[in-house]
């Protein structure tokens, strides 16, 4: 198993009274609450953490989120380019530029090719569907978001692999009549990743053979999404894949003792209990994010009386909307987060045992994305976490080899 460090560079330094008074900590919170001097310190620390990971044998992940306290990484390619130059060994996963928000996929391909060349072939490409408040931040139509997502990926992939002079793209959402990027990327082919918990998208991720990443989805959601991936491959007549095609992202906090690991781990839950607050127009009322028979229920201001029929949200078995998922996460405690596999925390032995158990329970994965810093976790605590994980936990995880699970286990 490989391990990857991921930090979204959150900005927790907004007065709690402001956060309590606002209806959304994303999209609409005025940026006067973001002090660029504090932001500069946060970026400097985050980049130092990435460099430490490079030394400790961890790979690294850069994500993208827009206009909120949850993340200052609105411009993912900027961070990727710095990491491409400043690190030496680590694989660098861009997870990713949010392609359905950008108007020019060819420009994204140029950014990726440039970073790949600067890093001499260490770039990996990840794609995230985006949604919620980012539709407002990017002026992006939420209804056909998924169509843009796949079309942009197709165009980026072709731009990165086509070497025979200009080609033309006249798609539904993107047109570009003369595509011929320089430099061409260092790598002939990229390993591509996608993050989604939605089984419909997971099936397409499976058919394409991308690395399927689940973020904070716990046992059941993760198993279900992995199963959708494998099932789609079987149905399409494609060969089975090993656990190397699966990844899981969770909060991880390693301390000298269980007490220390869990105490710092509790700070990571800031991401769930503070940074997810989102006004209804950016969340459950956003058009097109759930089928109408489910989306309609979101307009109720009170729970539907039990007597008037089944709960349609739960009746759509297996499909939790992103918003539904978020609501479950907001009030999570350390104990709950650990029980559900969202947080692995404790001394190195405990953390290894928790990861191994979760890994075995969900059918295995080849990549662990470590969410090791959010909220008010300090610079020093983050460095200690990376060092302890890299020294004490990672060598044991490396011994878990990719495996081909039996089909009945996957189903």
């Amino acid at each position, binding site marked *: 198993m490989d391990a990857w460090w991921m930090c979204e560079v959150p900005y927790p330094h907004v007065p709690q009274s402001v956060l309590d008074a606002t209806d959304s900590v994303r999209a609409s919170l005025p940026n006067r609450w973001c002090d660029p001097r504090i932001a500069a310190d946060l970026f400097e620390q985050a980049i130092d953490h990435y460099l430490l990971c490079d030394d400790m044998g961890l790979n690294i992940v850069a994500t993208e989120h827009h206009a909120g306290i949850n993340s200052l990484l609105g411009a993912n390619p900027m961070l990727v380019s710095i990491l491409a130059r400043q690190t030496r060994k680590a694989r660098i996963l861009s997870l990713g530029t949010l392609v359905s928000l950008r108007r020019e996929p060819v420009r994204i391909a140029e950014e990726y090719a440039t970073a790949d060349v600067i890093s001499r072939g260490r770039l990996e490409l990840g794609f995230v569907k985006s949604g919620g408040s980012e539709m*407002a931040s990017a002026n992006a139509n939420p209804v056909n978001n998924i169509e843009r997502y796949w079309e942009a990926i197709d165009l980026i992939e072709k731009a990165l692999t086509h070497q025979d002079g200009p080609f033309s793209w006249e798609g539904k959402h993107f047109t570009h009549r003369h595509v011929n990027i320089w430099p061409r990327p260092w790598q002939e082919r990229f390993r591509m990743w996608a993050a989604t918990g939605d089984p419909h998208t997971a099936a397409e991720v499976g058919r394409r053979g991308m690395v399927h990443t689940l973020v904070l989805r716990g046992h059941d959601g993760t198993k279900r999404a992995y199963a959708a991936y494998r099932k789609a491959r079987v149905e399409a007549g494609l060969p089975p894949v090993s656990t190397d095609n699966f990844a899981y992202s969770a909060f991880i906090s390693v301390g000298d003792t269980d007490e220390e690991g869990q105490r710092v781990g509790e700070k990571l839950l800031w991401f769930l209990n503070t940074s997810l607050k989102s006004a209804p*127009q950016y969340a459950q009322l956003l058009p097109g994010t759930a089928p*109408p028979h489910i989306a*309609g229920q979101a307009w109720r201001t009170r729970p539907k009386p039990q007597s008037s029929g089944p709960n349609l949200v739960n009746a759509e078995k297996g499909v939790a909307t992103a918003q539904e998922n978020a609501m479950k996460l907001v009030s999570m405690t350390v104990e709950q987060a650990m029980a559900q596999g969202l947080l692995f925390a404790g001394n190195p032995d405990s953390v290894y045992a928790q990861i191994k158990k979760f890994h075995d329970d969900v059918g295995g994965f080849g990549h662990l994305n470590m969410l090791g810093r959010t909220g008010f976790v300090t610079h020093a605590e983050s460095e200690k976490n990376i060092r302890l994980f890299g020294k004490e936990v990672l060598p044991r995880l490396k011994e878990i080899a990719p495996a081909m699970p039996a089909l009945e286990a996957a189903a």
Partner: protein
Amino acid sequence: MTETLAPPADRLRVRDVDLEIVRRGRGRTLLFLHGFHPLNPDARFLERLSREAAVLAPSHPGFGASSRPEDFETVYDLVHLYSELIDGLRDDKVTLVGASFGGWLAAEIAALRPHQLDRLVLVDALGLKLGDRETQDILDIFNTHPDTVRRESWHDPDRDAPDFDAMSDEALTRHARDWEALSLYGWEPYMYNPRLKRWLGRIALPTLVLWGASDGVVAPDYGRRYAALIPGARFALVDGAGHHPEREQPDALADHILDFLDR
């Protein structure tokens, strides 16, 4: 979607689009194009109009129980669809009434095919960019808190705004379907066609522009400027109504329209 509205809702097929449509009344043909949501078949406004006209009120593709083919997703598609629907009526002239989003469609159709219409009525119509680039003419109903949208949409929200908690599952499903289709058609540019203003001068037919006096989604002054761009158009306010006079003041709105049709 298989459910249909209660009678007298009907179906009408235009090419590959299966439209839910309300037909009621006799006389001159009046095509009503709805705003953010279709009206119910028993809506007071349609009933009043139907006393003096053969009213046709389709639900736009993707709204209510009308189908929407997968590649049907622009105002361009809607304008062609309704042009074809008008061709198929075999009336010499049709009276066209459009409200809000449907008013935008009506203005587009009137600019394209004025010779097929005898009267045009726009009610709190969208479709134009009139203010400067940093002033939004039309309230962003998708990116604004629903409480604000509610307050700005109705003259008397407590009396007239929909009560979602009292709605059936079917009604809520229709509501969500409308919301999704509206976003698809109107997200960007938000609820207007930057080219339409240039062509409104082609609308050489009697035109009445009516506006809810309390409309906070798109203000009456926008309506006055809209009317001024259409040769000879008259403008009038409907008191006691916000963005949806056909729901808040159906009788007063119908009186205005029927009076205009009699001239």
